[in-house]
């Protein structure tokens, strides 16, 4: 591209940037804002290294040649029903005035456009700062931040030509001119005529909300978010203040007529302001947003030797920040509407009703069953080893409580066979880890199996059983030899019961059982044993029965022995 084309492009983009900067800090309401095109926005931001965000509104900037001036009038327009004339509060003028550039090597086209660009950057920085120092900026902030209606509004006109002010009007304005920037086509001159004070316009908001302290801050778990605020300014006909978000008016007031912390614009610390100016919410303009660190991947952004016209970024620069506060506003708003979660209470002893956080199905709340299920409930309510231990200690499943042991046995059996129902069990048990963990988890998982297996419940004994010996672990697999009964005599009472139960589980039916006595019984003894019903017995009963059978056997044997003798004697006696 020829140097003249580059200069022209710089000037054109400069005018656009001036327009963008001025309107972005003067026109509060975004009407018909065009959806941002990220690629175009990025490219636009890179010009003059000043990222100003999205265009404030859809405006048709007048197409003009570089030699046509750009005039932007900022107008204070009274709102109806006020019948007052509108007033120009600022007039910004940017133009390229022809000049007779002195002949010097510094003014060669190739050198000039680089210098033009550099100085344009500096000028735009100053312009941006200066915009915030003028009185109209405070009006802009007030109008933008508040959802209240005001008696005035700010608008603009972008022209290539405007009637100059009369002498009287000029007296009301102050003039500030920025230092011109030399270009190939002339000098870029930016100036502003502004009213040093806007107090004559009597700017005010209707139904101004006084500052108020929200005593019961929404979001606190102690408060009801839906509760109406008692002395609400709504009673006085005022409307809540919300953050205007890119033209999206948050007129959707909360269902509860209650000002929430996110709906009230915090008052800015301006003790000397003539009218209250709420703090400006963030907008997409880069204002008051914790700005992202701009990408600095430009190569030689400013070197005279490496100057590039088109945005010289190899990767996209950050797009103007979206109304992040808006989204967080929405989120915070939504959060306030959800019901607080109930915190599950820790279980102590025989707490009957609880909601375990481990439960994947929170609807499965254990209720005290009137039947054998009650034991399951109590036992399965333990979801931690410590609790199971304390439970065990407090409840004290006694050795004589064979009924619960029997049920525990059936639970064990179902656990072992439970892999078909839930792989979790098998995975937990086969991991070789502590069945403490297995049972602490299974207490909840068993609850899941309520619908699957009726006879299941967890037993806290396994916690202790596992802790005491590995053999008890192995006992789960049913490989425990009978000798373990003798070993358990030294263990706790509960452990002994556990071992017995495991024995019963692994023991063959009495009908076919030969393990209780190394002295093999006679067929009569076997028949007697076989007739007994196993499941209706308790361990102690079984042992007693065993003893009785042994005695009977001995008696029978002894009797048969004596009978034989007698019969032999009798036989011998009869001739």
């Amino acid at each position, binding site marked *: 591209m020829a140097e003249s084309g580059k200069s022209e492009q710089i000037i054109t983009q400069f005018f656009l940037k001036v327009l963008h900067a001025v309107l972005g800090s003067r026109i509060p309401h975004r009407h018909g804002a065009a959806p941002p095109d990220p690629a175009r926005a990025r490219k636009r931001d890179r010009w003059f290294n000043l990222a100003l965000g999205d265009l404030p509104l859809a405006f048709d900037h007048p197409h003009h040649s570089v030699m046509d001036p750009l005039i932007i009038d900022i107008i204070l327009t009274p709102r109806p029903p006020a019948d007052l004339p509108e007033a120009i509060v600022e007039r910004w003028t940017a133009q390229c005035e022809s000049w007779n550039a002195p002949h010097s090597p510094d003014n060669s086209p190739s050198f000039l456009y680089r210098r033009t660009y550099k100085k344009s950057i500096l000028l735009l920085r100053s312009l941006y*700062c200066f915009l915030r120092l003028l009185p109209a900026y405070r009006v802009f902030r007030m109008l933008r931040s508040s959802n209240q209606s005001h008696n005035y509004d700010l608008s603009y006109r972008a022209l290539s030509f405007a009637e100059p002010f009369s002498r009287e009007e000029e007296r009301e304005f102050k003039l500030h001119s920025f230092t011109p920037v030399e270009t190939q086509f002339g000098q870029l001159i930016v100036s502003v005529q502004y009213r040093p004070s806007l107090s004559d316009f009597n700017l005010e908001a209707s139904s101004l909300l006084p500052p108020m302290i929200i005593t019961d801050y929404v979001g606190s778990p102690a408060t009801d978010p839906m509760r109406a605020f008692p002395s609400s300014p709504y009673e006085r006909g005022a409307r809540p203040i919300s953050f205007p978000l890119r033209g999206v008016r948050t007129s959707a007031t909360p269902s509860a007529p209650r000002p929430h912390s996110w709906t009230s614009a915090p008052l800015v610390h301006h003790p000397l302001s003539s009218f209250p100016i709420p703090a400006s919410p963030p907008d997409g303009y*880069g204002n*008051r*947003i914790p700005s992202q660190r701009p990408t600095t991947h430009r190569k030689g952004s400013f*070197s*005279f030797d490496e100057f590039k016209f088109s945005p010289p970024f190899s990767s996209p620069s950050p797009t103007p920040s979206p109304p992040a506060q808006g989204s967080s506003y929405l989120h915070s708003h939504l959060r306030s509407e959800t019901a607080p979660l109930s915190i599950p209470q820790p279980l102590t002893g025989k707490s009957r009703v609880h909601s375990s956080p481990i439960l994947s199905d929170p609807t499965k709340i254990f209720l005290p069953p009137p039947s054998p299920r009650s034991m399951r409930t109590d036992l399965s309510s333990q979801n931690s080893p410590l609790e199971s231990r304390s439970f065990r200690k407090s409840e004290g499943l006694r050795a004589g409580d064979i009924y619960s042991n029997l049920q525990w046995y059936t639970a064990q059996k179902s656990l072992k066979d439970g892999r078909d129902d839930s792989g979790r069990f098998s995975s937990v048990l086969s991991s070789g880890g502590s069945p403490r963990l297995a049972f602490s988890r299974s207490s909840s998982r068993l609850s899941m199996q309520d619908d699957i297996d009726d006879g299941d419940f967890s037993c806290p004994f396994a916690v202790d059983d596992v802790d005491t010996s590995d053999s008890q672990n192995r006992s789960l697999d049913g490989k425990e030899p009978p000798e373990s009964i003798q070993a358990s005599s030294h263990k706790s009472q509960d452990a002994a019961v556990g071992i017995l139960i495991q024995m019963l589980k692994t023991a063959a039916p009495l009908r076919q059982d030969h393990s209780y006595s190394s002295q093999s019984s006679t067929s009569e003894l076997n028949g007697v044993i076989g007739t007994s019903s196993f499941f209706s017995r308790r361990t102690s009963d079984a042992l007693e029965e065993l003893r009785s059978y042994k005695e009977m056997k001995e008696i029978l044997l002894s009797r048969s022995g004596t009978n034989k003798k007698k019969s032999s004697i009798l036989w011998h006696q009869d001739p």
Partner: protein
Amino acid sequence: MNCETCQLKELVVEPLEIRDVLRCILHTIVFHRALGLVRPKDVDCELFEITYVQCGDAELERKIDEKIDLFIGWVEKHPNKKSQVCLSFYEVRNKQATWMFSNKTERLYWEQWYINLHVINTKTHGKSHNSKAPINPGDNALEESSSRRASLESALHEVLFQIIKFVNEKKDHIPSVTNSEVISFPYEITTPR
């Protein structure tokens, strides 16, 4: 290359106002010298009805706050004194070694800003002037404080205009930008010791 110097108009401040005033001035100056891609960040002064612009660099913000803390510490030890905080921009040049073991870099300052502050403590300063006991000491003090604050705000406005004017008028001495950082030039903030 000549070094351009700007002496800013003196501001009479109270200790509590130092931070706000210095932040405003220092950030405004640096914003004009941060020639990398900047997403400007508007910041409202805490005590004044003034909005200034930061360039959004977190490291810069941290450094400025650090220096302000240092200055405040010095002020506490030297109350009711006039002082200066100096913001300098420089270039680093490698000095050619005249002999083998010397390889120094030198700083060539091309711009220096002097922020002139007169820190006063109104409690001690005010008492010395009042010979008569006021009827309503609380109201008078408040009124005095408000008017002093208003004049400081106006003076701060003027200082910011002064910065903008200086930045616009003096551009030729700025060196070439040789990096893609936001803060294009090395800088230094000097406080009294």
